[in-house]
């Protein structure tokens, strides 16, 4: 399964994603330059974390109109697999590949720490290697990670099981303190209506190798391989 990782000016998790695909999963991977519309025939596009275009105007607002993202939009519309992590999630929301938006954390601070996620739907290309309700530990590192959407969108996401991950504590309970940024309904990651696009604020690619403190995030990548083969 061939992966592509987009590099925007200001991306800083592109190498983490590249490393995870190449060295942890042992799969072919290419960088995709933001200024090119050629997606190099990849099977999955990863929109990485960072501060694309300096996060000017709004996080993800400028990246949306880059040639690589316009090509990714077409790729996703044809059913292509797209994984947006952190800034990548913000880019996917700005691109309208996912509904809603990410705004400033309730606490006003950039939060960088390990958190826990509860797997809410395992019947997707991104979560098939996880078990229902499985708790995974992965890091977050963001200042604008509070997911917001209107009530109609929230009801639709919930009814269609498109909320794939919610913040929780180590035993899976959702509490006020387990939500690190004030996200609506403890949402950490959502999928598109066809489940071929996932956006999430936490960083599974930074938790895919035991040397990094947790390998729990690897299951998201293993799910993609399981789905593909």
């Amino acid at each position, binding site marked *: 399964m061939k992966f592509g990782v987009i590099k925007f000016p200001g991306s800083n998790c592109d190498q983490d994603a590249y490393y995870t695909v190449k060295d942890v999963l042992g799969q072919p991977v290419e960088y995709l330059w933001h200024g090119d519309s050629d997606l190099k025939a990849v099977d999955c596009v990863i929109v990485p974390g960072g501060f694309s275009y300096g996060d000017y*105007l*709004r996080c993800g*607002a400028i990246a949306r*109109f880059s040639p690589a993202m316009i090509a990714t939009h077409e790729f996703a519309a044809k059913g292509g697999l797209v994984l947006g992590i952190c800034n990548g999630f913000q880019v996917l*929301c*700005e691109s309208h590949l996912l*509904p*809603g*938006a990410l*705004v*400033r*954390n*309730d*606490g*006003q601070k950039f939060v960088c720490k390990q958190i826990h996620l509860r797997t809410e739907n395992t019947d997707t290309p991104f979560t098939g290697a996880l078990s229902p309700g499985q708790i995974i530990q992965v890091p977050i590192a963001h200042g604008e990670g509070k997911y*917001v*959407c*209107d009530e109609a969108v929230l009801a639709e996401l919930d009814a269609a099981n498109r909320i794939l991950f919610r913040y929780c504590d180590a035993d899976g309970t959702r509490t006020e303190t387990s939500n690190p940024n*004030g996200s609506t309904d403890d949402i950490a990651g959502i999928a598109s209506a066809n489940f071929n696009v996932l956006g999430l604020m936490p960083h599974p690619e930074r938790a895919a190798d035991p040397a990094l403190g947790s390998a729990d995030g690897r299951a998201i990548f293993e799910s993609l391989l399981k789905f593909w083969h």
Partner: protein
Amino acid sequence: MAQVKVYITLKPSLLDAQGKVVQGALHQLGYEGVEQVRIGKYIEMTVADGPQRDAHIMEMCEKLLANLVIEDYRYEVIE
């Protein structure tokens, strides 16, 4: 050319956490009558005149300058 001023604010339905913190600081300074502090963005630009000018300003706001999921915008044109 016309000078255009665009004001972008978070939708009233969204909590403006930044505005809330600033309002708290103002109260602490003794300005207790201050309410509804909202922090937004202000953009200045010049735009070519023509019959499509206002349509183009609105298009720019809706496509790029504001995200209508979370923000409202308004603008003024100084002829």
